């Protein structure tokens, strides 16, 4: 696999990227945030991290539901670990204990009690660090899981879009002629289809899901990538090494994927961060309008909608706006740094 062999050029780009402090540290922070969100269940969850009961160890976070009867409680539904923690703390003699995650609420859990009405303001005592939303769900948990959904969505979307966009774009550039011309026209028409309306129409007929949204958005979003890839492939295919490859008998597929594509990789890579940012905002916009993922899926758009509808509960809108600004800024910084590190003017000398 030639793609993964670190050639000197890539090494030089990487070094340059590391030198761009702002972009590099943004990437580090963003990467760790994504990593954290992958293990969101360990950070914000109503399931305990660890339970020690009658000499046995339980790790309820991942895996099957443990009914209350497991811990000598009188109900068959999932154990309420917060109550269990209090109960065990009360009879401390037996050496049973529960460790809860830092935020002991799942994103779907309604923390409600009579005579107090959500949304509740942030409270350290109750471990609602960012407060609760209008259904009494923890805003931090919703943000965290919402971030995971958003980032997963944009990465999957990006993969699909680039797969189609790159393949079609480089074929257009490489083959040229009638194929190029006809595809240009097709793409012009296709890219003028209003995606948002399509999604609205689909959402009104069937409830949208993660994959349905990815497929619709990818179906209409791949076109923008084709133009860049077309240009890049067009330029590369005129170079001597392509001619050389052809001379020793390489087929079209081999030339496109083995020779041209690796040489246009910088075009692709520089676009990735901006596509990620685009994916996050697109999903949030759809959720905000109510055409995105079905409730009660945690999502930033839905939080934003709640926040703007309840401006008097300022903690909702503040949390989500700050989080969104932070992530989008980080992504943009990374994007800029990559663009600079991959800038061909720095390393190429035309004579």
């Amino acid at each position, binding site marked *: 696999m030639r793609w993964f062999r670190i050639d000197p050029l890539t090494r030089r780009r990487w070094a340059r990227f590391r030198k761009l402090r702002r972009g590099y540290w943004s990437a580090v922070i963003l990467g760790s945030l994504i990593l954290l969100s992958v293990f969101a269940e360990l950070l914000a969850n109503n399931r305990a991290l660890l339970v020690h009961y009658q000499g046995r160890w339980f790790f309820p976070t991942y895996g*099957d539901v443990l009914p209350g009867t497991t811990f000598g409680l009188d109900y068959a539904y999932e154990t309420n670990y917060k109550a269990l923690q209090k109960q065990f703390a009360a009879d401390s003699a037996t050496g049973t204990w529960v460790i809860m995650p830092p935020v002991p609420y799942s994103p779907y859990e309604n923390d409600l009690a009579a005579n107090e*009405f959500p949304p509740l303001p942030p409270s350290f005592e109750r471990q609602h660090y960012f407060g609760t939303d209008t259904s009494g769900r923890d805003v931090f948990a919703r943000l965290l899981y919402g971030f995971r959904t958003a980032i997963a969505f944009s990465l999957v979307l990006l993969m699909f879009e680039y797969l189609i966009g790159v393949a079609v774009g480089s074929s257009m550039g490489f083959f040229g002629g009638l194929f190029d011309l006809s595809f240009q026209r097709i793409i012009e028409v296709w890219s003028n289809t209003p995606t948002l309306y399509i999604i609205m129409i689909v959402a009104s007929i069937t409830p949208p899901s993660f994959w349905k949204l990815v497929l619709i958005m990818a179906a209409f979003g791949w076109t923008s990538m084709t133009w860049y890839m077309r240009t890049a492939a067009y330029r590369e295919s005129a170079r001597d090494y392509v001619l050389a490859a052809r001379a020793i008998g390489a087929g079209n597929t081999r030339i496109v994927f083995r020779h041209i594509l690796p040489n246009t990789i910088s075009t692709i890579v520089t676009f990735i961060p901006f596509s990620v940012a685009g994916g996050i905002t697109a999903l949030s916009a759809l959720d905000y309008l109510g055409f995105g993922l*079905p409730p009660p899926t945690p999502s930033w758009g839905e939080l934003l909608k709640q926040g703007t509808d309840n401006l008097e509960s300022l903690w909702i809108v503040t949390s989500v706006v700050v989080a969104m600004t932070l992530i989008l800024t980080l992504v943009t910084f990374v994007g800029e740094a990559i663009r600079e590190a991959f800038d061909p003017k720095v390393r190429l000398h035309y004579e």
Partner: protein
Amino acid sequence: MNNTMLYRMIAPFIKGGGSRSGRGILRDHEIPPRPPLSKGEIQRTLIQFFMLLLIACASMSYAQTPHLPANLQWQTNDSDPIFADPNAKRGGRFRSFMTSFPPTLRLVGPDSNSGFVSYLRQNNLGLVSAHPNTLNPIPELATHWAFDADGKTVYFKLDPDARWSDGVPVTADDYLFALEFMRSKYIVAPWYNNYYTEIITDVIKYDDYTIAVREATAKPSNELLFDVAINPVPRHFHKLDEHWVEDYNWRIEPNTGPYQVDSIRKGKYVEFKRKADWWGNDKKYFQYRFNPDYIRIKVIRDINIAYNYFSKGELDSFPLIMPRLWYKKAQGEPYEKGYIGKIKFYNDTPQPPQGMYLNEDDPLLADRNVRYALGYAMNFDKVLKTVLRGDYERLQKQNEGYGDYSNRDIHPRPYDLDQADKYLRAAGWNERGPDGIRVKNGQRLSLRISYTNEDHTARLAVLKEDAAKAGIELTLQLLDATTSYKQTMEKKYQIAWMAWAGGGIAPVYWEFYHSDNAHKPQTNNITNTDNKAMDKKIIAYREATTKADRVRLAHELEQMAYDEGAFIPGYKVPYTREAFWRWMKLPPAHATRTSDQIFDPMGSTGGLLWIDEEEKDAVQKARILGTPYPPINILDETWRQKP
């Protein structure tokens, strides 16, 4: 923005429908769409239509003018108290809002069920209406009425003063034409076609100001009278042909009420103007009402923006039924300084049956035990106490608020996990899967609940979480109103979260529970209830003619409906509440027993408000200077029903 999206957004805010417009799905105070006809009904309609034609031809040959039966007991009502305030001042402009522009100005036909159309319907008077406090009949377009011994026919003496807005007198011919019009296929309104064929079977003219209206089945006289109190249709205005629907889309139909559409700016607003020389000005129950000269209904597409308009004084009143608005939005300086007042008014009307409708044709829900278990697994109590702030009350049964007809011994199944467990075990759902949800033969006990209002997500999220404790998974399916309506009417749903519109004097059972309407699309028996014992009782109820019998049968039917378990009662809102600017004035009683809106400029319970222009100027000045008034917080419990 597309239409369906607007539709979803307006859902909680638009007004209730006309009283005689039949039943449709009501989505949180939304206008009722009319239930379409089934094939069987269409056939029956056609047969009946030809029979009528035959009878009409036969009778025409020997009797040109029918004669009034002798010794009719003419009745009227001028003894009930008036409910308007003699101190009311005329004039001014009342400003309200709607969240979308109406798709048509027609009263019937396609798209004629938007929230706006109720303003038009309210100015389209009927023969009689109910006194909003005593519920006795009071004159509207008829001055007197008399009942025939057959229990199906009512005679009316028309008010000779009544005029269409273009000055043409309202005569018996307009009622004859109403029948022709409502039966016409050109109006593309199957519900009306059916109602004016199956329920209203005939209109007879004796002279220009005396008519009789006949219904298909005999009924107790009070129910019969309101059923047959039809609205006239201006014969001189309509030309019925295949182009009617398009031609009359934006034409302003002459009406009989106090207001008429005066100016329209498409997409912006509709303005009504008070008729200066309205024929009803001096009639007892119309006096002192309908006071503003103009009523402007502005299009504001977002409820939060509409509230901002209101708080700036651009709208005169604002509905605050939703707890979020009442507790969070309606606070602050203008309230403390008394520029804006708040009023909460308990009313006493039939409650829309809001809750969960279970589709008995669904394989999972076909088992009565599962339906019972679901009833026991819904923690409505928690929803009411938390998300709804204890503001709403639990609905007890499907038909509530019908006075004697309502069976007070029926209460909804409470949240009880032991009972839920018992019934689920009886249905064979013994085991729980790894996620705590019950499984049987590899199938999970997962049910889809469809709803249309985003604001209800919080309520359903609570129900979902507590239902999981019983081992039942609810998946929430938020649909737009049109899609949901279609899906429900085609009976392709599992659980529908909705309410019916309607009301009237007595509950109806045939359309909701009779097996004739089960297992086929486009009927109101959306739960597909198919219970032969119930069928018999329903027919007996339909045919019973004394009130005592009907009450007894209604009680038994309500019990059977409870035993069927296909409806899980949700909540009711036995009051209405609004915010209003200080210059808006109301009678001492504020509103009426049956008012579903306090600052309602029109309609049979409305028109009580007036605008105090002097105070308006004073309040505007005080706002600039910051001078405070005493705050206004009105709680009116006159009509509150003790549980």
